[in-house]
């Protein structure tokens, strides 16, 4: 390393340190032996991970999170794909406006969406449950799924769809046998992005849930009773899961496209 690249290297080090140091500290103190996640570090110990696994409420919330994440992501991807197919393949009146309205929720803060949903559910008399959280997550993830899938619908699929129709395929067969498989990387990417966002999402889940809650909401209620290494353990756990989603996405989708 020479004198000219030194400032650049320093800068990079600071940048990544700024981003990852908090996470590293969080993970480090999840292995703390004593009751407080503050220096000095006296671990390593897996005691707090054991405590986490023994906590029924936490484990229930974990299962809820997975359930809400998978189901809402599947719904968001399906609806987003169908909307993209319709707008890409058919001439619709006010297509530009429809497209705009579909992607508009991307620009609205989760807090506003959550409040809107809360008011709507209250006035309709819909009880708060995992279902309402799921609906909230479809609302935030559908625009994303639509935008990803729509951007990937090109002339190549259109020509293949035409050939399939020519060979006798009906509309549903075209969609199931040609369009969806050809868009598989985009569908996969939007599913995993949705899953990641749903897994992390707190505000909406907090506003429209009651007895059954997702993991972020459960963590928040734990934090209210003060810090302890168990919250670090669960935080590390959530981080590792999110990281695995992104890694999987990168390996399966992005690698494939590069090939």
């Amino acid at each position, binding site marked *: 390393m020479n004198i000219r690249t030194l400032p650049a290297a320093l800068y990079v080090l600071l940048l990544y340190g700024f981003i990852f140091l908090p996470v590293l500290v969080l993970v480090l103190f999840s292995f703390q032996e004593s009751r407080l996640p503050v220096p000095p570090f006296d671990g390593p110990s897996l005691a707090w991970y054991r405590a986490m696994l023994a906590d029924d409420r936490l484990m229930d919330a974990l299962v809820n999170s997975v359930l809400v994440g998978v189901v809402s992501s599947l719904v968001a991807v399906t609806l987003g794909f169908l909307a993209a197919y319709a707008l890409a393949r058919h001439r619709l009146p006010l297509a530009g406006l429809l497209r705009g309205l579909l992607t508009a929720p991307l620009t609205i803060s989760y807090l506003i969406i959550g409040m809107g949903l809360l008011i709507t559910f209250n006035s309709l008399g819909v009880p708060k449950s995992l279902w309402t959280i799921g609906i909230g997550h479809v609302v935030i993830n559908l625009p994303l799924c639509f935008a990803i899938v729509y951007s990937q619908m090109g002339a190549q699929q259109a*020509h293949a769809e035409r050939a*399939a*129709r*020519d*060979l*006798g395929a009906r509309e549903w067969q075209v969609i199931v046998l040609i369009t969806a498989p050809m868009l598989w990387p985009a569908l996969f990417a939007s599913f995993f992005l949705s899953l990641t966002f749903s897994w992390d999402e707190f505000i909406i889940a907090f506003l429209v849930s009651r007895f059954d809650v997702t993991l972020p909401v459960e963590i928040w209620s734990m934090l209210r009773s003060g810090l302890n290494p168990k919250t670090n353990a669960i935080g590390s756990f959530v981080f590792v899961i999110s990281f695995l989603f992104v890694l999987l996405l990168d390996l399966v989708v992005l690698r494939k496209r590069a090939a």
Partner: protein
Amino acid sequence: MSVPAVEFRDVSMRFGDIEALSGVNLTVEEGAYMVLLGPSGGGKTTLLNILGGFLEPSGGRVLIRGEDLTHAPPARRPTTTVFQDYALFPHMNVAGNVAFGLKMRRVPKREQQERVAQALDLVGLAHTAGQRTHALSGGQRQRIALARALVVEPSVLLLDEPLGALDMKLRRQMQHELKIIQQRVGTTFVHVTHDQEEAMAIADTIVVMNQGSIEDLGPPERIYLRPVSRFTADFMGDSNLIEGQVVTQRDAQLTVRSALGEFELPGVAEPGTWVTLAIRPEHLHTDPGDGRLGLGNAQVLECGFYGTHHQCDATLASLPHPIKVRIDQKRLLQPGDVLPLYLDPSDLVVLAR
């Protein structure tokens, strides 16, 4: 008389203000290899899309084997298409691509396998069955597209500029193969191209299309040697076009006066009307031969070498524009050289102006 494979009855197509087809009537006989030929915008692709069901005509009817299918979607037609970009399914292997149409027709699995194998055999690609399509060359993809379309045994196979993406050598080779395959399977082929050499090499019948209507229709030799319109004469290879005026008409024989002299030619036109005389460059000779008519001396402007021949532009004192002449491949000419020209009047074609 059997039912024709395809009948277009007064088919028209409008895109907004543009009339892409104006009242086209065309019959394609069973087992024919018909080529729709014309410049882009001529309406040939529109006609093919209407036949395939990808476009609904603004007017008229389309009958396939006597059945009115004007408004039937592509999936319900006994037609299949070889597309210009092949449109193979990239997520399936070669056998999967070829089997697709059979699957849609719920053909039993065992029969599917047999027919896929036969179709791949027909195009000489049996060994590629398990390969992915993107691993194949352009010519191979083209053949897979052909096998995929033929395997379902369509009444009519449509080919939309199928050789457009291939290089010249492969193109000529595939023309030959297409013709052989068509003769072997006996299916009616309707093929769209803008390449007149391709059209002449493979067609039983050429349909020349221009500005949404049929200019000329007939076997390649007739279209080339006796074109019926000035457009066809000009579009099909090179032609020298010379203005002339009808002097007399008797028993479908015309006397036409032109800058090259007076000719007795077959044709029907009122005396006094202006016509165009067409003569192919290869029909202008530099020796008197057997009873050819002398046109006088022409002066060479420039020559190009085409392998089988030289083609030269030359000026005749009697004509305002240079004319095109074909010269033997081994004869070298310089600009300024003088050539005596002769023609056989029976090679002249009278065209309505």
